[in-house]
């Protein structure tokens, strides 16, 4: 660690990964993991915007029980696209491809990921998949739901084949990232960076990568078979050709359940970073958190049938899946308790990333606990396929992963751009997102227990009040997100210059300049302490520089 103080102003004039080369070609052909992270940032957030507009349309239509602004077909297409875009084009890449790509190599003391060209290829594959998905929307759209259940998906018209092909292509983007991270974490750690000195964010990405490489290919072949069924009637899923539609559900959920852990594990990794940094305290239960990530990765493969308790599968299968589902909940609970304990005897501050962390505790707790209702077979019979499910998965995916993702964005933003965001407005955005999110989705639990099925374009009058509250919440949420976008975009171009370590954190990325130099480290870093040793190492948060 250098003893001379460098002001934030000094670092800005240095060569960094942003100014080292200019022009669009230097971006489109970059091999720098940081630039690739930025490429993903813009494309993924564009898809988030699109998916969000679709969500607002859904909620607008549901303001009244009858048909308001669109036909049933249009509504069905909109909820299908909202799901497919948010899952495949937003959440799955969000933390790994944006934050992971940028931060992971630096956190382990490496100059880049193991396979930079594969990394760039993964982004191009993502763009190809996104392009094909957008084409599908224009070319006839899809109304099957993001789950593509057969035989409806094999029989109905629309651009099902091209949309399914788009998802197939996107799967490769995910697989490439997974392969890259596994090789990087195993082989490129700096000397002294043992497994147990790695930040928990890295552990989270590692567990995620394991699932990515094992589960995604199974989705791939399922989608190929679905395309063949539609094109050639091969007879695997369509009963008219001798196939079994429930087999599709087994194949589909074998990937799609582990997929939700692909979504949450990186988010949990971010939370470990944030809670330690903003409590200015050593993380509680490092090994417990690390091991629980890996445990979740493996257990996640055994529970897919809990999506199918009423599908007609056997009672024995239901028994086993229910039991394993309860088991996979335990490591998540362990993490929560360890994170909360991290605040004990800490020195807590409330910057925006911490506000998102606290939001995460609130909303992910609800999301996880509502999973218990669904793991229990008797209650699941009543609740499955209702709005209770919609609320549950939004609480874990958005209340979990996305809150962590937003916290991570704010946290690493000064490192990425060398400029600080406006803290007051950041906090306002966090508050609005918290309020809007709960207002939108909590009423949906009640609608579900009261019997309102999901994917309903029109609904019986008695559910209207709950829907009105939910739609109002969606506007508050949207406002919070718009403010967040303005805060972050403004900071990119006009924010005050950021120092190396505005948070007083101890992981390796905070030892290098903001923005980082092109190869991260001038010399291979020496790892002398653990990533959370706030009890041993005294590091004060550095002051943000005056505006340029």
């Amino acid at each position: 660690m250098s003893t001379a103080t460098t002001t934030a102003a000094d670092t800005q004039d240095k060569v960094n990964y942003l100014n080292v080369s200019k022009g669009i070609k230097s971006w489109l052909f970059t091999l720098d993991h940081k630039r690739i992270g930025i490429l993903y940032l813009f494309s993924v957030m564009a898809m988030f915007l699109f998916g969000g507009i679709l969500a607002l349309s859904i909620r607008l239509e549901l303001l009244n029980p009858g048909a308001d602004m669109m036909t049933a077909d249009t509504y069905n297409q909109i909820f299908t696209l909202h799901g497919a875009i948010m899952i495949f084009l937003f959440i799955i890449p969000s933390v790994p491809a944006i934050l992971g790509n940028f931060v992971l190599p630096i956190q382990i003391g490496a100059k880049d990921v193991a396979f930079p060209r594969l990394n760039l290829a993964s982004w191009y594959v993502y763009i190809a998949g996104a392009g094909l998905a957008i084409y599908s929307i224009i070319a006839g759209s899809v109304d099957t739901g993001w789950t593509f259940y057969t035989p409806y998906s094999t029989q109905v018209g629309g651009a099902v084949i091209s949309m399914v092909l788009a998802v197939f292509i996107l799967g490769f983007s995910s697989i490439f990232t997974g392969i890259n991270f596994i090789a990087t974490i195993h082989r490129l750690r700096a000397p002294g960076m043992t497994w147990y000195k790695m930040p928990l964010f890295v552990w989270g990405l590692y567990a995620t990568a394991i699932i990515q490489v094992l589960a995604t290919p199974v989705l791939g072949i399922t989608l190929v078979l679905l395309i063949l069924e539609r094109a050639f009637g091969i007879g695997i899923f369509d009963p008219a050709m001798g196939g079994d539609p429930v087999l599709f559900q087994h194949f589909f959920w074998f990937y799609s359940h582990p997929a939700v852990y692909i979504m949450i594990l990186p988010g949990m990794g971010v939370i470990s970073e944030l809670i330690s940094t903003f409590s200015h305290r050593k993380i509680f239960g490092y090994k417990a958190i690390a091991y629980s990530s890996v445990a979740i990765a493996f257990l996640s493969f055994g529970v897919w049938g809990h999506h199918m308790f009423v599908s007609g599968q056997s009672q024995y299968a239901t028994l086993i899946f229910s039991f394993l589902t309860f088991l996979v909940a335990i490591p998540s609970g362990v993490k929560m308790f360890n994170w909360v304990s991290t605040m004990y005897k800490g020195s807590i501050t409330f910057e925006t990333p911490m506000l998102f962390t606290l939001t995460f505790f609130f909303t992910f707790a609800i999301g996880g606990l509502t999973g218990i209702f669904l793991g229990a077979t008797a209650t699941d019979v009543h609740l499955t396929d209702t709005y209770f499910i919609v609320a549950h998965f939004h609480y874990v995916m958005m209340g979990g992963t996305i809150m962590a993702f937003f916290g991570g964005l704010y946290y690493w933003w000064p490192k990425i751009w060398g400029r600080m965001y406006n803290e007051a407005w950041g906090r306002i955005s966090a508050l609005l997102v918290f309020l809007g999110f709960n207002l939108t989705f909590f009423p949906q639990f009640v609608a579900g227990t009261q019997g309102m099925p999901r994917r309903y374009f029109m609904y019986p009058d008695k559910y209207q009040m709950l829907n009105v509250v939910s739609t109002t919440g969606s506007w508050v949420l949207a406002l919070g997100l718009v403010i967040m976008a303005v805060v972050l975009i403004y900071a990119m171009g006009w924010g005050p210059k950021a120092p190396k370590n505005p948070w007083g954190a101890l992981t390796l990325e905070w030892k290098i300049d903001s923005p980082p130099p092109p190869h991260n480290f001038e010399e291979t870093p020496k790892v002398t302490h653990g990533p959370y040793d706030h009890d041993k190492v005294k590091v004060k948060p550095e002051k943000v520089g005056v505006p340029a």
Partner: protein
Amino acid sequence: MDTTGTFWMPQGASSIAGEVDALFYFIFWASVFFFLLVVGLSIYFIIKYRRREGREEATSHVDYNLKLEVIWTAIPIILVVIVFFWGFNTYMKMQVVPRDAIEIKVTGRQWMWLFDYPNGSNSINELVVPVDQPVKLTMSSEDVIHSFYIPQFRIKQDVLPSRYTITWFEATNTGKYDLYCAEFCGKGHSEMLATVKVVSQDQYAAFLEGAGMEGGEGMSLEQVGKQVYTSRACNTCHSIDGSPNVGPTFKDAYGHEVELSDGSTITVDENYIRESILEPKAKVVKGFQSVMPTFQGLVSERQIDGVIAYLKSLSEVKEVEQSE
């Protein structure tokens, strides 16, 4: 909202609803406890340990406590195992059909529910059952996957095209209850609504006598047709106000010329209406998909006559010259 239920659950009306609700509330209160524990502790910690001047330096070195890890792993495991067994126990009761159950066949179809009773009667979109009597439902779909859901009975079961699935219930109170389709099945998914009508044993017997082939004695043909319009679910796809839906509107249909999908034109007369009810795919109006199912065996001659009369009442053309 149904005012006779609780904040969370609609009023239970089956023999199993109470048990399902008991489990629900156990999980609910346990969840509330753990939620308050996590959130409460968080709030307590962020207040007590917030950063203060003079307390900015190195913090606690406590980073591990094996006893705590064991406790907060073991207690949740015990709790979830309890919930697992309880849930499965109730679930098995929902799966095992009592021996004295009466059997009704359910057919799901885009976008209506057909019910066939033991004596050969049938009904559409209204399931009539006797109170305090186990009812076994054998179900299948004619097209895509649907799901049979009665919230107040707390039962749900997917209805598949390739095989039969089974569910059962015993209704404990007379009355009318909502029946929804709960598996997305296309355009009319949210309109695939039906009613479960729980009646006394005597009323059920009477229903079986007269059901399916309602002659509607004492009603005019037009009244019969108007009744059939809803009871046979024509309203799911055909409006009477002029707006197109899955199928053409009935308003001003009778007596007018329509273009068919093969380019030819035809006048909507008695024969065309009858043919469309019994062989709907024969002459489809241009611009509409050929998705109407046949009602052969589901409507009586009198009911067909009634529908024709009803359509006449919706059009300003009252008579069409019959040509051979």
